[in-house]
């Protein structure tokens, strides 16, 4: 790790004043579960680390008229323990529950989850987020078992690592980002972007901005289903998060979003169409899952993820309408 300066401002304004418009120069520190390992591997070498965990404005879970406000420094563990979320937003709670281990869930934050960098092993070994070596894309002919099966026609092949992203997109959440000059709201589905070159990030925030809070509407039946190889301390192979507006037992509108299958959370609009106007049965869920993956283009090793994504959708849908 390179040497760096460290600041721990008490207020949000103070913290924002320390950020830089130059990419990588100043890094905000939340739980640090990703940042510290990136620094150890010299994948980022910030001049200044700004600890934002103690900033009060960035904390707290509160409910308002249209939904729930979640501060960006809320931890996974906070999400899991919150009674309001457990009742209204089980998809978010379940997504948090799947994260790594109790230690990581105690430290990792909502903001950090959204802004963490991909787990692609080529990226982590220093080949960049697009995994190139001397103009050769390493993923298509390489070890791509964990890579994207959708929106993977290049140059990006990694999968979005966010655990909460699919649920937030499905729920129609809004991400508020702030900078010294003000704040702006970004719809969760616009927050995640696919980089086209190495200078682009995977999220739509500028280096001098922070995620301050998330606004999540309530009033849907929602659920997340994660396919994970190990029972703990493992990344999902595929995740599905669904949010259903219901009239009785009939779906009036649906949002089905997949995680860990594309460079961003993948909105399976083909599934949404299948579900509208129907009740959720195993047959309907299976049909929606099938449609959702019609356009999948698996790489040489990851055809199995198509099936995993399908089963995640089916099981999330059945879970959403259970009980």
């Amino acid at each position, binding site marked *: 790790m390179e040497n760096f300066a460290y600041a721990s401002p008490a207020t949000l304004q103070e913290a924002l004043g320390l950020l830089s418009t130059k990419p990588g120069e100043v890094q905000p520190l939340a739980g640090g579960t990703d940042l510290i390992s990136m620094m150890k591997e010299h994948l980022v070498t910030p001049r200044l680390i700004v600890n934002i965990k103690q900033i009060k404005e960035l904390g707290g879970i509160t409910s308002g008229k249209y939904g729930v406000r979640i501060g960006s420094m809320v931890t996974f563990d906070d999400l899991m323990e919150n009674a309001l979320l457990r009742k209204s937003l089980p998809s978010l709670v379940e997504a948090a529950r799947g994260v790594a281990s109790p230690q990581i869930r105690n430290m990792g934050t909502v903001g950090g989850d959204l802004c963490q960098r991909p787990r692609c092993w080529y990226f982590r070994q220093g*080949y960049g987020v697009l995994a190139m*070596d001397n103009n050769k894309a390493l993923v298509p002919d390489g*070890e791509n078992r964990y890579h994207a099966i959708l929106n993977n026609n290049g140059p990006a092949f990694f999968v979005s690592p966010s655990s909460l992203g699919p649920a937030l997109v499905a729920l129609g959440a809004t991400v508020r980002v702030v900078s010294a000059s003000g704040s702006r709201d970004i719809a969760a589905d616009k927050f995640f972007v696919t980089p086209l070159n190495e200078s682009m990030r995977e999220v739509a925030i500028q280096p001098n901005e922070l995620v301050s809070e998330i606004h999540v509407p309530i009033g849907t039946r929602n659920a997340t289903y994660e*396919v994970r*190889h190990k029972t703990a301390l493992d990344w999902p*192979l595929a995740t599905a998060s669904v949010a259903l507006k219901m009239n009785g037992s009939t779906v009036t509108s649906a949002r089905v979003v997949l995680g860990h299958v594309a460079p961003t959370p993948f909105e399976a609009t083909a599934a949404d169409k299948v579900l509208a106007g129907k009740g959720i049965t195993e047959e309907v869920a299976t049909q929606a899952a099938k449609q959702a993956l019609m356009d999948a283009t698996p790489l040489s090793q990851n055809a199995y993820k198509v099936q995993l994504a399908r089963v995640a959708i089916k099981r999330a849908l059945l879970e959403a309408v259970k009980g």
Partner: protein
Amino acid sequence: MPDYSWPPMNDRRVIGKRISRLDGGAKSSGRAKYASDFYRKDLLFGMLLTSPHAHAKIVSINLDDAKSLKGVTAVRAIAAPGDEIQWEGAEIAAVAATSEEIARDAIRNIKVEYQVLPHLVKEEDLSKAGPRAKAAGEQVTGDPDKAFQDADAVVVEGFYGIPVLTHCCLESHGNVVEWRQDGLNLWPSTQNVSGIGGDLATSLKYPAGKIKVEMDYIGGGFGSKFAADRWGVETAYLSQMSGGRPVKLMLERRDELMIGGNRPSGFAKIKVAAKKDGTITAWQSESWATGGIGGGGSPPLPYVFTEIPNKRMSHSAVATNTGGVRAWRAPNHPQASYLTCSALEDLAAKLKMDPVDLFMKNLEVTARADTYRAQLVKASELIEWKKNWHQRGEGDPGPVKRGLGLAINTWGGGGHTSQCRTIINPDGSVQIEIGSQDVGSGTRTVITQVAAETLGLPVGSVQLVMGNNSLPPSGPSGGSTTVGGVSSSTRKSSVNALNKLLETVAPVMGVQPEQLKAVDGRIQMKDNPSKSMTWQAACAKLGTNKISEMGANDQRKPEGLNSSGVGGIQMADVSVDTETGIVKMNRFVAVQDVGLVVNPKLADSQIHGAVIMGICGALMEERVMDAYTGRMLNPDMEFYKLAGIGDIGEIISHLDITPEHDKRGVIGLGEPPAIGVVAAIANAVANAIGVRVPRVPLTPMHVLAALEGRNA
């Protein structure tokens, strides 16, 4: 000649008892200190620069910028310009510095220019190996062609593969070395306390007698920690260059996985023929494997069922630009068991035969039919085989399918060469001195039990000193030979010491020494227990002279105290979610023959550990190499996946504790239960889902590919 034989089974007070490991408290509380815990005020931190390339020639190495860093005390080039590097992770240079951070900075300041050369890092597709594959020649017995062509023969053919696994000890390889003018102190993480100093001495051309080795605890070895290793030698030089200050160098996790040693892969095309009644008539295997640039890894095929009448075997070793092979808990056996038992299970499925019956039918071609027969019965009973087994793929109708599978193991064991000293002091205290090591298997506890049993004392009355090379030497802990060696040497030294004590007190009691024995803290007449004296009183008769007696085990002459050659049967009960390909362990049964069991609780622990290791290999563990860059993609504990507590299921161990096995003496247990786990689980999965998954680990990728008929 004193009688060293073990006391009869029904007359043991300490041996054979389920005593908890004596160092459990120290280990679980953190009081136990490991080489990686070593700290002293003047300690320096050592670090390696390793090659990022799989195959390259060193053009130049410039150490100047590293040397000029403040806090750096030594910088050494390990490789030289012109050297050819044959794997990623190969040692290039080493530094020592006053802090870990400075050492890291120094490593980054070393400038190395490489000329990158073509590499081969994958061996699964033998056709791509070209001249890198070296065939070992064909072995033929009988007339396999005729046997396969027999009109009545039922023939199966299959491809099976098991990948390279890397060592991944919780405590990585490494050591602390302090090389001063007057001598060298070594604090290693080693399976070889008595021998590692000599190994280091040879490399340093320094007198072995001036090297002191100390190690109380080790955080895992599993066959990978016998030698001083290149990094040990480098640590010594770094210390010497730093004015004799101690230097700690432990491998980084990534280096641990790349150069800490690995288990060779095993791939094979196998063909087996049997009569309709299940009698195996012919075997044919074309196998290949890699163990790094030196090739390596020749699984003994067919495994256990060695006397099949007609056989043809060929094997190729593939030289890859990957880190080197090291012993890994039963070298070559897990691969051989997996390859053989998979093929036999496929044969049973084709014959529509219960594989337990198929194994039973063919035990006569194994070396220990009676043992296996009894074990098959016992294991079947424990896993409720008859109730739970079904024909392949004919299980539950839902998406989650349950299946059972079995596997077989064999191993040598025996007792390594070991010397022990038993000291009886006039105050009645007892000290055992032995230059062995407890690699986590419970050696401390076992030695203490043997001494206590022999001297008629409780375990708490025996003080054990071990873990340094000034003590009577004992062999390295490998090949499951430790318990046989140390139990025998301890028995002998303790019998010898006791006899000295009896010789002292016999005249006082007015009897002959042969009429006395030590039991329950007393010295008493064998045929008249009322005539006795306390242990303390007896020892007081020594005056000011302590008793110090040696005992030795000779590996080639165990004198009935230890033995070798065991067998075991293992069975797995799994559930497979056929929609996700995820395999869940329900139960795992391990039935093992181990001779005389000194401590059944520790023996059970050994089996549990071995089974957990096997579950990792069966379900998730695999070295992933990138063909293009030549690099290992998962040298970490994120994607080099190991099972967690939730992935393991229930483990049921059964030790064959019977008079017949007991009378063979003590036999090691570290390796045998690690052998059949992958095979049993792979067979259970095939039984559950109805198709063979040809390639382990049994990840969703491989399981779903098999279910969907894809080539994984």
